[in-house]
């Protein structure tokens, strides 16, 4: 066992897949000599060469489009968005070209588009986004969002091996904050489409993903000690497709659900989860399904503003308390 960070786990996963399968290559801005803005691909160009670690112009549409073309030809490209905020520049390519390719034309497009997302880092409006809702609505794409080091590794490997296009969202606040013991010499693969029970409890369920998993776990610990409320926490890990079975299992067990995400509220993933619970487990509910999300504003820069806009541990504690008492 060795202690690795979330970022190092992601790096290991990428490296292992590059070693395992020569069809895998990386393309993106500053991914080669520089090793990527967050050093995820540091050392890759030395090991794998410029043919497999390709520095590109600042052209997200071309990066994703070229990855799609290469994938049609049997390659397994991994495209890096330097910050995930810039994935919107490739929105057309992803939603119109890539997502529809199999359905409309029988074209296989096994690409991974990955990049650092999320706030709590004082990044301001264009270096803090969570773009999942913009793609969640598009049939043909898959979206994964690891919260642990194990899943950072397991999901990048599974995404590269998946035959469908996958958007891999990695949280930059977790990059070096999360450390975990991972076994050496054992292959870690996290199945796409499966949620993970991060904490067991009987009184209330929190359904979450990404950085707010850790804030939810912190809140659960506090509620246990201070309120004797046993909170169950479900880490979704994959957003598209959603693991309905795991969500309904925890709803039926605790009968109270709080959905927590860092993304803004309106049109967010939580709304869809709430609708599915309503359709599939209405009679199991003892309380309304509630949400804790970011406020519906662009993410501001100043610490006081960012902290106010984003969901904090204290918000989750208060919301859970309210729900437990309902």
């Amino acid at each position: 066992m060795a202690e690795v960070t979330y970022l190092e786990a992601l790096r290991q996963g990428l490296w292992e897949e590059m070693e395992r399968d020569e069809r895998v290559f990386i393309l993106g801005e500053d991914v080669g000599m520089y090793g990527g803005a967050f050093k995820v691909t540091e050392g890759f160009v030395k090991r794998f060469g410029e043919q497999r670690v390709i520095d590109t112009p600042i052209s997200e549409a071309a990066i994703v489009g070229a990855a799609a073309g290469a994938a049609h030809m049997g390659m397994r490209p991994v495209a890096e968005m330097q910050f995930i905020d810039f994935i919107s520049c490739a929105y057309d390519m992803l939603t119109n070209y890539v997502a529809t390719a199999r359905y409309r034309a029988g074209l296989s497009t096994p690409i991974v588009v990955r990049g650092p997302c999320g706030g709590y880092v004082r990044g301001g409006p264009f270096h803090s986004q969570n773009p999942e809702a913009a793609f969640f609505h598009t049939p043909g794409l898959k979206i994964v969002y690891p919260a642990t080091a194990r899943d950072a590794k397991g999901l990048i490997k599974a995404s590269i091996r998946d035959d469908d296009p996958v958007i891999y969202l990695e949280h930059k606040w977790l990059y070096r904050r999360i450390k975990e013991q991972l076994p050496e010499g054992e292959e870690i693969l996290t199945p796409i489409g499966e949620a993970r029970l991060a904490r067991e409890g009987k009184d209330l369920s929190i359904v979450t993903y990404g950085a707010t998993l850790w804030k939810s776990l912190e809140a659960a610990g506090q509620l246990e000690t201070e309120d004797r409320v046993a909170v169950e926490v479900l880490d979704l890990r994959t957003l598209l497709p959603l693991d309905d079975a795991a969500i309904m299992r925890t709803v039926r067990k605790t009968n109270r659900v709080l959905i927590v995400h860092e993304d803004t509220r309106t049109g967010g993933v939580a709304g869809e989860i709430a609708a599915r619970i309503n359709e599939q487990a209405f009679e199991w509910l003892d309380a309304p399904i509630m949400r804790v999300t970011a406020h519906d504003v662009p993410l501001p820069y100043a610490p006081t503003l960012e902290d106010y806009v984003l969901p904090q541990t204290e918000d989750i504690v208060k919301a859970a308390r309210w729900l437990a008492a309902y």
Partner: protein
Amino acid sequence: MVSRTVPTPQSPTIPAGLAREQLLELYRYLRLTRTLEERLTALYRQSKVIGGLFRSLGQEGESVASAYALERGPNRDLLSPLIRNLGSMLVMGAQPIEILRQYMAKAESPTRGRELNVHFNDLDRGYLGQISHLGDMVPVMAGITLTFKLRGEPRVGLVYVGDGTTSTGAFHEGLNFAAVQRCPLVVVAEYNRWAYSTPPEKQFAVKDLAEKAKGYGVPAVTVDGNDVLAVYEATQFAAERARRGKGVHLVEVKTYRRKGHAEHDDQHYVPKEELEWWAKENDPVDRYVRQLLDAGWTEEQDLKDIDERVRAEVDEATDACIDEALPLPESALPGVYADPPAAERLWFRGL
């Protein structure tokens, strides 16, 4: 093709290293494109075509000739056509019955009724259908040709863009990317005067599309798009250059769209005399026929025989598919992903 006549010693040499049989084959594709589109127009008027009909009348020459300059067959060159490149697809091996089925949304069509008209592909034959978002195929073809380069395969890609396409961001990003990576890519820029109803002077501020290539460090040439052999020669030069590892080359073909954007478009924005001039004086098929006959490379009877065979082929294809069924409704659900195999059928359909 069996020839009835042999060129006389007085005939000028056939250009671009083409053989007489190839000249006739080019003619066959020109005729097939036009005859098939005329058939589609008839089917459109009978409401057999489900969606819009997009004609390439007046542009068949550059479509057929540019595709003909590529190497065809499995694992050979690959092109990405636009809506008016039916001729290019036929050259690469698309069958008239597939086109007819596509337009009529038949279950047996290449996309099983999921996509329209010439939006389909066959990577073995060497064509990758476009999507409606103009310019998107440039980055995709950059990625395809990047793969040819990375694997050291002697293959070339060709992507068609219209004068409107060159205004898109995807065109810019894709061309720049391909130029930087020295991808073996030929860009055929069709200056056909109309992007829907928008003329070039409202689309860009350069005179020729070839000028745009300079900004990417891409060599370019402008040719008469209605001169079949000139387009063939220019494309072949660009393709062989790309095949030798010299990177992207742009071929601008000056042509003219003689029909509306689609069949519903009455072209009220087009001066009537202009249309008449292009039809009378600068039709690519007429010009090619005149060239063949004047040079003595063929005789009129050879061409008439081809016309006859093409008409029979289109008749046969139409008869074979016109009464075919549309796809079954529930066949709409499978194939969004490799896994899961089908989208969920929603609950209200079970009520």
